[in-house]
C-alpha cells in the first residue's frame, strides 16, 4: 500500500478564529513502513493522524489531498470515508482507555460493531482469539466489562479491535503514553509484530517519545507547529539530524549513565508559536540558534538525501 499526503491543511474552527493546526503537510508512507510521527504537544501530529480517519467536531479540511493506493481518500467527506474506516484505514485512539462502551461486555461490543460493518462475528472469532493470545490477553477478557481491565489490557484490547479487519493503514495515536514501561514495550513490540504478520500494512506511530520511535520505526517524521520539520530513516535521523529542531530534541534526551552533576539536561528554551495567527516564515525561527535573515521566508520541505527531507534553509 502507499499513502501519499499532499499539502494537507486541517484547521480547527474556534471562537477566536481558526487554529491552523496542520498547515501544508506533504509526505508519503510506503508499503509495510512503520513511520514514527514525533513532536511536541500541539505540533499537529495528532491532528494529522486523526484527519486520516475521522475529522473531529471542530476540525475542517481546508486544503490538500490524501491518496491511498492511488485512489483519493476523501477525508473531508465523512459519508464517503465510511467505507474506508476500519477496513482500509484504522486508528488506535489517544483515549483508548475510555474507548469502549462501559456498559457492554467487550466481546458483545466487538460482535455488534462487526455486525454493523457487515462482518459476521462467527467467521472472525477464531482470528480474534488468535490475536488476543498474540498480545497476551486471555480470551475470557471478552466476557468482561472495560472497567475490569487494567490500562495496559485496555490498550492492547483496543489495538486488537482496531486491526481486526486488517487495515492497510493504521494510525496509532500515543498508544504508549499512559502506560508503564513494561506495558510500553509490549505494545510497541505488538505493533511491529502486527506489521510483520501482515495484519497491518503500514503504520503511523504518533508519539512525543522520540526514543520509542527510535526503537520500532523504520523512518521518523518530526513535526513542529503544524508543519513538517524533517523526515528520514530512523538511523539517519538519530545519528545525523539536519534540522536544528531535531538536533535539539535529540540533544534533550537523557542519556543512560550520565548523571546530573556531570551534564545538565538541556531543553529547548521558549515555546511553540500560537497557531491561531502563526508567524510568517519558518515557525521555529524564534527558538532556533541557527536562525538568519532568510528564515523569514518559509523554507520548503525538500529532499536533501535519499528519503531524507528537511524544511530548513541551513540544511539544504
Amino acid at each position, binding site marked *: 500500500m502507499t499513502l501519499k499526503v499532499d499539502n494537507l491543511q486541517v484547521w480547527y474552527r474556534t471562537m477566536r478564529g481558526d487554529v491552523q493546526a496542520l498547515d501544508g503537510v506533504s509526505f508519503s508512507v510506503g508499503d509495510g513502513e512503520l513511520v514514527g510521527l514525533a513532536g511536541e504537544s500541539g505540533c499537529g501530529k495528532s491532528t494529522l493522524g486523526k484527519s486520516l*480517519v*475521522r475529522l*473531529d467536531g471542530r476540525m475542517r479540511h481546508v486544503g490538500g489531498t490524501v491518496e491511498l493506493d492511488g485512489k483519493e481518500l476523501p477525508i473531508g467527506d465523512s459519508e464517503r*470515508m*465510511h*467505507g*474506508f*474506516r*476500519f*477496513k482500509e484505514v*484504522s*486508528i488506535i*485512539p489517544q*483515549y483508548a482507555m*475510555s*474507548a*469502549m*462502551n*462501559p*456498559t*457492554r*461486555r467487550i466481546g458483545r461490543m466487538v460482535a*455488534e*460493531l462487526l455486525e*454493523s*460493518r457487515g462482518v459476521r462475528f462467527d467467521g472472525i472469532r477464531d482470528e480474534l482469539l488468535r490475536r488476543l493470545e498474540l498480545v497476551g490477553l486471555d480470551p475470557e477478557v471478552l466476557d468482561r*466489562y472495560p*472497567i*475490569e481491565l487494567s490500562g495496559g489490557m485496555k490498550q492492547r484490547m*483496543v489495538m486488537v*479491535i*482496531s486491526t481486526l479487519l486488517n487495515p492497510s493503514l493504521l494510525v496509532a495515536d500515543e498508544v504508549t503514553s499512559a502506560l508503564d514501561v513494561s506495558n510500553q514495550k509490549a505494545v510497541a513490540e505488538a505493533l511491529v509484530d502486527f506489521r510483520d504478520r501482515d495484519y497491518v500494512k503500514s503504520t503511523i506511530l504518533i508519539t512525543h517519545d522520540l526514543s520509542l520511535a527510535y526503537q520500532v520505526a523504520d523512518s521518523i517524521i518530526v513535526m513542529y507547529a503544524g508543519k513538517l520539520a524533517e523526515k528520514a530513516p530512523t538511523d539517519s535521523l538519530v545519528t545525523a539530524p539536519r534540522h536544528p529542531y531535531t538536533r535539539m530534541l535529540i540533544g534533550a534526551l537523557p542519556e543512560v549513565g550520565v548523571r546530573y552533576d556531570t551534564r545538565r539536561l538541556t531543553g529547548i528554551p521558549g515555546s511553540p508559536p500560537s497557531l491561531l495567527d502563526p508567524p510568517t516564515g519558518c515557525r521555529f525561527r524564534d527558538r532556533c540558534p541557527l536562525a538568519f535573515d532568510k528564515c523569514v521566508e518559509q523554507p520548503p520541505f525538500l529532499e536533501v538525501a535519499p528519503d531524507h527531507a528537511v524544511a530548513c534553509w541551513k540544511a539544504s
Partner: protein
Amino acid sequence: MRRYFGRKLGIYVLTFFVAVTVDWMIPRFMPGDPVQTMLSRASLRPEAAQSMEAYLNNVFGLDVPLWRQYLSFWGGLVRGDLGVSVWLFPQPVTGVILRAVPYTLALLVPAILLSWWAGNKFGALAARRTWLDNTVLPVGYVLTATPYMWLAILLAWLLGSEAGWFPLSGGYSFSLAPSWSAEFLASLAWHWFLPFLSLFLVAFGGWAIGMRNMVIYELEADYVHYLESLGASRRLVRRYAFRNALLPQLTGLALALGVLVAGALVTEIVFSYPGLGYLVLQAVNNQDFFLLQGVFLFIVLGVLVANFLIDIAYVVIDPRTRTGMRGEGA
C-alpha cells in the same frame, strides 16, 4: 449485588423508622396538650367528641412513659391500626386510606411509567433532529416549570368546563354504583383521563429535557468517537448512547418520586378525584390529624417501595452492578 441491595434495603428500613418516629414525635412536641388541641380544633358532635376523647387519651396515654407510647404506636402500626378518622368518624383511618389508594395508584403508575418512557424517547429524538429540538426544548421547559395543580386547573377548565368533553370531578359518575359493568368502567376511565393527562404532561416535559441533555452528553463520549472512527452504524452508536443515557434518568426518577407524588395529590384535589390527595384536603379542612398521619405513612411506604423497584430496574439496565462493580449512582 447482594451488597448493593443490602445497602439499599438498609437505608429504606432506616428511613421508614425515621419517618414513623417523626410522625409520632410531631404532635407531642407541639405546644400544649395534644388531646385537647385536637379536640378543640375538630368540630365534632358531643357524642363523637366524647368517644374521640376517650380514644385519644388511650392513644396518647399521657400517664404512660414516652417510650411506652412510642412502642404502642409501633404496635398499632404493625396491626394495621392507624387510628380513627375525625372527618369520617368512626371509620378507621386504614380503611379510608385503602379505599383511596387504588385511585391514586391508577393515576400515578401509568403517568410515571408513560411519561418517563415517552419523555426519554422524545428527548433522545430531539437530541439528533434539530427541528424537533427547537420545538421540544421550549415546550419541555414550559411544561416542567408548570406547577402540577395549575395544568390540572387549566385542563379542567378548558377541556372540562368550557368544552365539556370530560368531567370535572369525582372518580366516576355520581349516578352510577360501582360494578364491573362496561358502563361503570367507561365512566371510571372517562373521569380518570384528565387528571392522568395533567400529571403525564408536566412530568413528560422534565424527562424530555433531561434525556435530550444526557444524550447530547453521551454522544460526546470517547466510546462514541471510537465507534464512529471505526465506521460503526449510526444505529449502533445511538443504541449505546441511549442505553447509557437512561442510567442517570433512572436515578433521576428515584429522586423525582417525591415531586411526582405531590403532583398527584394536588391534581386529585383539583379534580376532586377520590384518591389520597382528596383525603389530604379533607383532612386539612377537618383537622383530621390521624388521617393526615395515615396518609403520610402510606406515602412514605409507597415511595420506599417505588425506590426499591427502581433499584431493581437499575440493576437490569446497568449490567455492571450485577458483577458487583459500582455503576453510576449505585
